[in-house]
């Protein structure tokens, strides 16, 4: 592991846990179990952050910004800068673990399209609100 990778890893741990004394118990209790022998430390941090994020989602809470940021930065160091570097297995694995809880941001890029009409824009705005909504209860029905 080179110096740049080590720095990125340290930053990710810092983002995820901050001061260990003030860390969330859910994040802390799995920390030591993650760093087993022979494991890639970046992968361990990624798995830890992913598990924490999943736990928040299962509880219907929004994923805290520091966990989301840690996930993002470790993913970059694991996969390179481009999302295009993801392989098929990773892409499908990620898709098969969808989010049901509320989300904060949705893709709004359709606003820039020339073909848009006001009616279509309103329609897509409404759908964006639906994506942001918590689907947990719908899933349980």
């Amino acid at each position, binding site marked *: 592991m080179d110096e740049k990778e080590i720095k990125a890893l340290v930053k990710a741990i810092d983002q995820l846990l901050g001061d260990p004394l003030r860390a969330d118990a859910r994040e802390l209790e799995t920390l030591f179990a993650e760093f087993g022998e022979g494991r890639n430390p970046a992968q361990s941090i990624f798995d830890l952050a992913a598990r924490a*994020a999943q736990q928040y989602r299962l509880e219907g809470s929004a*994923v805290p910004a520091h966990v*989301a940021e840690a996930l993002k930065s470790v993913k970059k160091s694991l996969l390179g800068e*481009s*999302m*295009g*570097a*993801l*392989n*098929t*297995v990773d*892409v*499908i694995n*990620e*898709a*098969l*673990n*969808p*989010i*049901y809880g509320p*989300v*904060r*941001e*949705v*893709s709004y*890029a*359709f606003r*820039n*399209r020339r*073909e*848009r*009409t006001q*009616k*279509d824009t309103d*329609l*897509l705005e409404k*759908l*964006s609100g*639906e*994506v*942001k909504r918590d*689907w947990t209860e719908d899933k349980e029905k």
Partner: protein
Amino acid sequence: MTSPSELASHLLDRLGIQGKPDLVQVAQRIGLRIVEVDAEAFDGSLVRALDGPKGIVAVKQSLREISRKRFTIAHEIGHYLIPSHRNLENVCTGGMIESWQKGLNKPELEANEFAVELLLPTRYVREPLQLNDPSLKTIGRVASQFETSLTATTLRFVSLTDLPCVAVWSEGRRARWYRRSDAFPFYLSKEILPCDGSFAYGLFEGSNAPDDFAEIPAETWLDRQDADRVVRVLEHSIGLPNYDAVLTLLQFELKDVGDEEDPPNIEDLDPEDFTVRRKRWPR
């Protein structure tokens, strides 16, 4: 990164889907909901969470053919899963979906490629498509079975067959795009196609066309040089009046390499032909 069709194939494997996929089931497993909407200017749209896998595929309610609705949904699932599409503008108008024009941008072509493999999985269509016996009738039966359009299924055939074949889509009396099989070595001049004399041209003129493959002069579809290199050309064209379009499947019998004229003897070549002082230039 693997290809969009490999991604679709892997998704079907992981979901244990055999044969025709149930798109609602596929969508549910990957955090997508499908809704039909009263859209004005788009056929399909993907509204997605930026935080992770969650989103809605909106499909235009008024699309008449179920095959087009299915293709639109599969196309949007492609945008959802292909990693490099995550930050795209994702409203897809009719001309982008189920079209293979070179003018389309790469993400749209990739989403189409994904959709074809998702809807017509290679492993399940190879046999029913009868890849060694081209026939739009057979292709039509597979299209009905998998609820896909004749066009998409014909392209699937062309992409899988080992025979020299070409599918041509003409609209408004002009060839808009074509797809050739790996075994077909020439290019078509689509700017001047379909030519007078082809069954496709006749359909635009209001004539009838044979309801199966029929032989046609090679120059009808190929330039003279390429036409000299084929034994015969078979054409089957079908009019699609709803689109003011004609779908054509061409099958070629190529001359064996051994049938070509013998190359000139090396002693017959004029050395000056390879210098700036050459007197005769090839036309």
